[in-house]
C-alpha cells in the first residue's frame, strides 16, 4: 500500500479534481449542530470536525426508501435511479468497517444488485477521527482500517498522509499528481506514530466484547430483559441509525392509471412490533423484551460466534440516539452484572418493582 502526503491547502483542489464526473458527498454541520453526509456544492460547507453523523453512510448505497422495479403483466423494469457516480469523503474507520460488514452481507448467498451497483459507482475516501465519550471502536477493533476505502486521509498538523487503498484510488491521485508529495520524511513518520499513540490513549469508553457471547448465553433468561422491555419505546431508532443493521421491507404500490405496480423497498427494524408478524395474525416476537434480545443477540453474540468479530463497529450511534438509554454500552454493563445509571433502572417503582 502506498502512502503519500497532501498539504491541507491542496485538499479542495484535489476534491474538485476527483469529483469532476461525480457527486461529492461529505459531512456537513446541520442546523441542530449534528452532522450528516450531504451532497456538496460549496467546499466551505464540508466540516471534518465531527465524530458521528446521525445516519451512517450506508444511506448513500441503499436509501431509506427507493423503488426497486416496476412490475406489470408484461414483465418488469428494474429501477436503478438511486445509483449514480458519487465520491464520499470523510468516512471514519468505524463506518468503513460498517460498510465492510454490509459488503459481506449483500454478497453472501445472494448478490444484492441494488447495493452492489451503488457501491461500484462510489469512490470512498476515509478520514481519521478523534474519539468522544461515546466512541468505543477500539473495543470492537474497528478503530483502524486496512481495507474498504479507495483513499484514506490521516490528518496531521497542516498536512494529510494519504493511504491508497485501491487502484481506483490510485487513478484518482493521477488526476492531479502535482498536488501530492511522494516522499515522506522521518519526521512525518514519527509524527504519525505519535498521533496514533495519543489517539489510542484517548478512548474512554471500553466494552469487553469478547466476553459477550458467553454472557448473552448465561443471562438469556435473566430478568434484565423484562426490565429493558418495559422501558423500550419500540421506536426503531437504534437499528435505523446502526451502520450494520440491514433489514428492509418490500411493498407493492399499485399505480392508479396504469396496470402496473411499483415495488418499493424501505428500511425496516426488528424493534418494531410488525416486523415479525406473519400471515394468519401470528407474531413471533410480540414482546418488546423478545425483540431486544434478538437485536442484542445479533450485535453481541451471533456474529462474533460466526465471523469472529462483533456486528457492532463501536460508532456510538445507539448511545447518542436511544431516548431511554438502551444501547450497546448500558446493555453490556448490565450483562456484566454492573449497576447501570440509565433511565430503565430509574423507571418508576410501580412499573418495575
Amino acid at each position, binding site marked *: 500500500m502506498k502512502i503519500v502526503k497532501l498539504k491541507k491547502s491542496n485538499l479542495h483542489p484535489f476534491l474538485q479534481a476527483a469529483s469532476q464526473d461525480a457527486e461529492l458527498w461529505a459531512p456537513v454541520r446541520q442546523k441542530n449542530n449534528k452532522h450528516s453526509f450531504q451532497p456538496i456544492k460549496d467546499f466551505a460547507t464540508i466540516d471534518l470536525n465531527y465524530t458521528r453523523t446521525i445516519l451512517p453512510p450506508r444511506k448513500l448505497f441503499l436509501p431509506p426508501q427507493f423503488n426497486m422495479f416496476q412490475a406489470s403483466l408484461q414483465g418488469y423494469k428494474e429501477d436503478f435511479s438511486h445509483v449514480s457516480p458519487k465520491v464520499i469523503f470523510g468516512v471514519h474507520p468505524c463506518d468503513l468497517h460498517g460498510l465492510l460488514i454490509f459488503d459481506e452481507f449483500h454478497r453472501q448467498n445472494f448478490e444484492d444488485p441494488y447495493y452492489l451497483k451503488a457501491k461500484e459507482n462510489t469512490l470512498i475516501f476515509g478520514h481519521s477521527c478523534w474519539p468522544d465519550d461515546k466512541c468505543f471502536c477500539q473495543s470492537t477493533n474497528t478503530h483502524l482500517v486496512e481495507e474498504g476505502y479507495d483513499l484514506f486521509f490521516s490528518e496531521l498538523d497542516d498536512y494529510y498522509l494519504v493511504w491508497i487503498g485501491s487502484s481506483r484510488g490510485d487513478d484518482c491521485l493521477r488526476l492531479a499528481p502535482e498536488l501530492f508529495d511522494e516522499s515522506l520524511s522521518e519526521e512525518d513518520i514519527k509524527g504519525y506514530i505519535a498521533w496514533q499513540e495519543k489517539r489510542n490513549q484517548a478512548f474512554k469508553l471500553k466494552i469487553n466484547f469478547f466476553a459477550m457471547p458467553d454472557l448473552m448465553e448465561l443471562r438469556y433468561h435473566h430478568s434484565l430483559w423484562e426490565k429493558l422491555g418495559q422501558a423500550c419505546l419500540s*421506536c426503531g431508532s437504534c437499528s435505523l*441509525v446502526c451502520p450494520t443493521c440491514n433489514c428492509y421491507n418490500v*411493498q*407493492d404500490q399499485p399505480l*392508479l*392509471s396504469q396496470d402496473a405496480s411499483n415495488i418499493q423497498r424501505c428500511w425496516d427494524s426488528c424493534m418494531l412490533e*410488525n416486523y415479525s408478524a406473519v400471515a394468519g395474525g401470528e407474531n413471533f416476537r410480540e414482546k418488546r423484551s423478545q425483540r431486544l434480545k434478538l437485536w442484542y443477540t445479533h450485535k453481541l453474540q451471533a456474529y462474533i460466534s460466526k465471523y469472529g468479530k462483533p456486528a457492532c463497529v463501536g460508532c456510538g450511534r445507539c448511545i447518542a*440516539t436511544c431516548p431511554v438509554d438502551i444501547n450497546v454500552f448500558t446493555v453490556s454493563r448490565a450483562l456484566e452484572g454492573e449497576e447501570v445509571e440509565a433511565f430503565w433502572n430509574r423507571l418508576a417503582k410501580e412499573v418495575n418493582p
Partner: protein
Amino acid sequence: MKGKKLKIGIYELTGCAGDALMILNCEKELPAIFQAVDIQSFLMAKSDNIDDELDVALVEGSVTTEKEVEELKDIRKRSKIVVALGLCATVGGIQARFQDPQKWQENFRQVYGETKMELPAVVSKPIDAYIKVDFYLPGCPISKEQFLNFFTRVVKGAPPESYPQPVCVSCKYKENDCLLKNGLFCLGPLTADGCGAVCPSHNLPCVGCWGPVQGGNWTSEFYLLQDKGFSREFIKKKMANFAGTKLSEFWKQFDRRD
C-alpha cells in the same frame, strides 16, 4: 379491477371536513380518481348524490349526535367496506377527550345551558364504537400520499396496508436529531406514522395528531417525560389530546397507580 366501477360514498360526520377537503386537494389525480370509480355520494363535491348500495364508504368525523348514529348504521348496512377516514373517525378526535359521561354532561350544560337541542347530542365517539370498521386511515387531516396509496389499493383490489410504525421511523429516514432525546416533549414513539414526520423535520416535536400507534409504550414514555421534568397533569393532557377514546384502558391502569 376490470369491468364495473366500484361505487364509492364519502361521508362527513362531526369533524372539520379536512379529510374530505384533502381528497379534493388531490387536484392532479382527481380526473384519474373520478375515472377509476363511480362516486355516488360526496356532499362536499357534488349535489346529485345517491345514497344507495356501495362498495366502499369513506367516513370522516366522530359520532356526536343521535342522528349521526342512525346515519352511520345506515351507511354500514349499504356498504361492503367501511373505512374510517381521519383522526376523528378512527379515535374520536379532540372532541372525544371527555370520555367520562358525567363530566361530559356537566360540560355540555355549561356550554349550552338548558337549551332544547334540535339534534340531541351524545358523547363523542369514533365510528367503531357503533359499527364494524374494515380499514383505518388516520391523520389530522389525512395526507394526500397516504390517501392515494390507500385508494389505489382499494381500487385495484389489493388489501390496503395499515401503518403500524411510529413517527420515529420516518423521522430517522429524514435524519433528524431526536428531540425527545434532547429533552423536548415529543410523542413520535407513540404516534402512528403517515405524515412522514413533518413536525420533527421542522424542529417541532410531534403532538400525536395521527393518533396512537399500535404497540406504543405509553407507560415508559410517561415516566420518561416525568423524568425530564414535565408534570403528570401536563403529560396527561398532552397525551390525551389526539388519543380520543383509545387510551381509556391505559388511563384506568394509570389512575389506579395515582
